[in-house]
């Protein structure tokens, strides 16, 4: 195994590959040099971002003066080395190796003469439980085995197929595993061990029974696995899949954005299809430093944001007490009419740590102008006042609440508001509070994948948030709602009008954002809603984790 540290030496030397003189720095392997020089060598187990093991042997090359063939992924380049990466003989050998690998991988479709028409018309079947051929495999479009079969023009496999008959592993949350498809390349083990330091999985059992698994073959959720799904990202076959992203084909759009669920602010790429968040994957440049995101950002977003219960249309309480849907103009009118009946000291604003900087700023500005800076946050159950002069003493005079995180409000907190008359809810889901007779308006907001903006994270890093999906119904971003209400109330001191003016204000008053408490990595909620309520597998994950380990780490 080549140690990564060895590669640091930067003396340039030259060698010859396929008759072409190429330069390299010492410590690089033949495979690395070839790749840099645009020369393709087929591999299954090796990856540029993983340490090599030479286990699949597909990358064999001929080195002049060396008997037989060497694996290019583990052989260091040496000065004046003469390498041939391809010849009839090498190709024949590689075909033989691939045939052997495939004799234990359900290969029927790979060499089937009617594969093309079959797959064209069997698109739906990529969501089967047990995969017995490519037409059932959700990974078939990015499968490296298939690419190799085509590259090596393999038309027939001489061995009968030997099914390993491992049981399907799909009792874990989020992840389906079918080790009958596994070719034992070990990439998943290496990424888990070398790059993440977790070693949740390793090769277990022996001989023909060898497979990847956890120690004592426990469920992953009961072991060290954190469900970051990096193993899925590097798997060359369809053995590992994220259940929620089990679908055939490519996304319509891939949008890099920043996860807002905690203070880490991990970069991730949203897969959009049909204007919905269909999946999440890491930024394509998978350098080690960027692999930090957790199960929340990797697996929970689609179910969390595509839930049909999302608030879609503004609603107001009619005079007879019934809540009715209305359009935005009516709703804003209704809200501003109610607010204009109260003095600023009778109004309080509950902001949310999960909002973008723009939305937070807008609420802050609203509170400053119209609510005597009565603004507070929830940090789990604790109430935080960014305005240090305030405390929950203000609550007893408050008659109107403008809430951007309604679900955090417990009955106990509500009781502190002795003279409460009206509640305005601006949120993404209905909460238990929605049923309160004091609610006079419910305003649907967007989630972070449905809007543009910025968000400040730990260490004052401010990162972009990019729209990747369409909001449900008529929902609009929080800042837009707040700006609408603020302007309808007609105080000339309320100066923010649009996205740009908010951003300018943030530049001038950065402390307003800095005063917002951060969301810890361990948080289990989004905007006051437990993620587990909308993502059943996340509920399974945390319950099981608590049971087996007593705590949860992401």
């Amino acid at each position, binding site marked *: 195994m080549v140690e990564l540290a060895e590669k640091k030496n930067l003396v340039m030397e030259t060698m010859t590959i396929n008759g072409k003189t190429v330069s390299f720095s010492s410590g690089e392997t033949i495979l690395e040099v070839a790749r840099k020089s645009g020369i393709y060598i087929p591999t299954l187990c090796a990856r540029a971002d993983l340490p090599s093991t030479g286990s699949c042997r597909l990358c064999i090359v001929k080195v002049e003066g060396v008997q037989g063939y060497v694996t290019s992924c583990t052989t260091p380049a040496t000065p004046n080395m003469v390498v041939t990466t391809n010849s009839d003989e090498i190709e024949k050998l590689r075909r033989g190796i691939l045939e052997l690998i495939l004799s234990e991988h359900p290969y029927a479709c790979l060499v089937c003469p009617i594969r093309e028409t079959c797959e064209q018309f069997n698109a739906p079947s990529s969501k089967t439980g047990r995969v017995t051929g490519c037409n059932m495999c959700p990974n078939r479009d990015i499968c490296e085995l298939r690419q190799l079969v085509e590259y090596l023009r393999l038309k027939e496999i001489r061995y009968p197929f030997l099914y390993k008959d491992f049981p399907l592993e799909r009792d874990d949350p989020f992840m389906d595993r079918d080790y009958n498809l596994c070719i034992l390349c070990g990439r998943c083990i290496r990424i888990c061990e070398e790059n993440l330091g977790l070693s949740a999985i390793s090769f277990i059992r022996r001989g023909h029974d060898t497979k990847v698994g956890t120690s004592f073959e426990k469920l992953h959720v009961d072991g060290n696995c954190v469900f970051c799904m990096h193993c899925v990202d590097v798997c060359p076959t369809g053995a590992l899949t994220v259940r929620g992203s089990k679908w055939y084909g490519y996304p319509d759009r891939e949008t890099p954005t920043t996860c807002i669920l905690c203070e880490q602010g991990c970069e991730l790429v949203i897969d959009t299809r049909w204007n919905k968040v269909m999946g999440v994957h890491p930024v394509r440049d998978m350098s080690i430093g960027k692999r930090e995101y957790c199960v929340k950002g990797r697996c929970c977003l689609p179910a969390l944001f595509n839930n*049909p219960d999302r608030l*879609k*249309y503004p609603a107001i309480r009619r005079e007879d007490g019934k809540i*009715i*849907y*209305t*359009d935005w103009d009516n709703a804003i009118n209704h809200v501003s009419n109610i607010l204009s009946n109260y003095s600023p000291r009778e109004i309080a604003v509950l902001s949310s740590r999960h909002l973008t900087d723009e939305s937070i700023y807008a609420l802050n500005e609203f509170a400053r102008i119209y609510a005597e800076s009565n603004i507070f946050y929830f940090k789990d159950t604790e109430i935080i006042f960014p305005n240090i002069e305030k405390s929950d003493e203000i609550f007893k005079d408050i008659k109107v609440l403008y809430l951007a995180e309604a679900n955090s409000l417990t009955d106990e907190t509500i009781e502190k508001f002795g003279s409460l008359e009206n509640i305005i809810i601006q949120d993404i889901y209905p909460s238990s509070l929605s049923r309160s007779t004091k609610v006079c308006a419910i305003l649907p907001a967007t989630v972070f994948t449905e809007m543009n903006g910025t968000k400040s994270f730990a260490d004052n890093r401010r990162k972009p948030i990019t729209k990747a999906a369409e909001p449900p*119904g*008529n929902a609009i971003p929080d800042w837009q709602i707040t700006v609408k209400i603020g302007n309808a109330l007609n105080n000339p001191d309320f100066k923010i009008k649009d996205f740009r003016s908010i951003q300018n204000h943030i530049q001038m008053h950065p402390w307003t954002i800095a005063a917002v408490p951060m969301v810890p990595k361990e948080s289990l909620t989004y905007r006051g809603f437990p993620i587990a309520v909308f993502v059943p597998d996340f509920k399974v994950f945390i319950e099981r984790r608590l049971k087996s380990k007593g705590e949860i780490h992401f």
Partner: protein
Amino acid sequence: MELTAKERMAIERHGMAEQPPDLRNRNFEEVPYGYTPEEAVAEAQRCLNCKKRQCISGCPVEVPIPEFIALVAEEKFAEAARLIKTKNVLPAICGRVCPQETQCEEVCVRGKKDVTKAVAIGNLERFVADYERENNLMEVPELPDKNGFKIAVIGSGPSGLTVAGDLIQLGYEATIYEAFHLGGGVLVYGIPEFRLPKKIVEKEIGALEDLGVKIYYNSVIGRLYKVDDLFNIMGFNAVYIGVGAGLPIFLNVPGMNLNGVFSANEYLTRSNLMKSYLFPKYRTPMVIGKKVAVLGGGNVAMDSARTALRLGAEKVTIVYRRAREQMPARAAEVHHAEEEKIEFRLLSSPVEIYGNEQGWATGMKCQRYELGEPDESGRQRPVPIENSFFEFDCDQVIVAIGGQANPLITATTPDMKVNKWGYIEVDDWGRTNKEFVYAGGDIVTGAATVISAMGAGRRAAKAIHEDLMKETDETLRPPDEEVE
């Protein structure tokens, strides 16, 4: 305080508060919100309680309309609901889906000049039924002793429910066979949630079950049992067939089998019965068209068009062969559709549906029509205008041009008389040519209304009662002897 006629005349009709069209077209909640108690009392006071009581004769099931309205005026809402139920077992449903403007309200004295000024009988009926249900005031009426006769009802649609409800109250054992996994027939698969919340149907069927009506779901008569089996094997004394119309008709133009072309039945069944508007919680998927064309001018076409809007269509166009005046849809439904900005292309009919390489519908070629001589139904016949074609884009086509008789039962009951279109032939009281076999609703008349099906059910129930009582010679004999 008793109002004078003059005072009553002075009260304006109370419209029901409704969701404004711009937003109701994106959600599946009911469009009208219902009366408040105050509105209901005020509306009830508009009734003049006239001698002639035309309204009752306008009602296919003869609900005692002036009496129940008088109870509403006295704020005796639950009593009013119970009074209606003596004649109509499904008031919350009828209050919503009956075409009152062509029935009771059309003949109301207050609406003589303008039917929209009539007493809002339907709204009041809906109000009292909702009031009774929402306040848990529903009572199980006392039933007479069982008379020993067993009746099989095929189909749990409006006519079947009426037959079962009526007969159980006369001492019969009533058993309903329903093909679907839920009861209600067209009430659950056809009429959309925003017009008739399914919770209400469930509640009203629950009330019937409380009365003792047995319902077997997932039971397709004609396949599981033949009609004769119901007598011979299952021991029923009479059978009522209320299976609805059934098979959808498609136009005979190229492109009808493209993806994205649906029968209204399929489209509505997916959305309503299988609740695909709540997908993915409910697993049945639905194609969401951007530009949707609906073919037809009936209530089903309006329902389909409005469902399409709520599912997220950008634009919905109704294509209808005749003119506005000939549309068979309820005026209120057409009005709602127009309010929701559904486009109407009248006097037009498709000659081809275009598709793309993947086999999905992409557009439509239509021909314009003009009105010619009246046909036998009295409506002016649409005549195609030569070389008057036009095209427009659409990625979904919903065909709502009616249906034909479902042969599942008639084909397996060869000795039952059907007319040339396959509908069952019956007398005025629902009797078929087969002894003790009765039929009513759409399988007799072709597509019609909920209330007319209920009326047919009511008449058939009377006939069944009369015929079976005649058999027993007015003394109750155990039914076992009858079967022999």
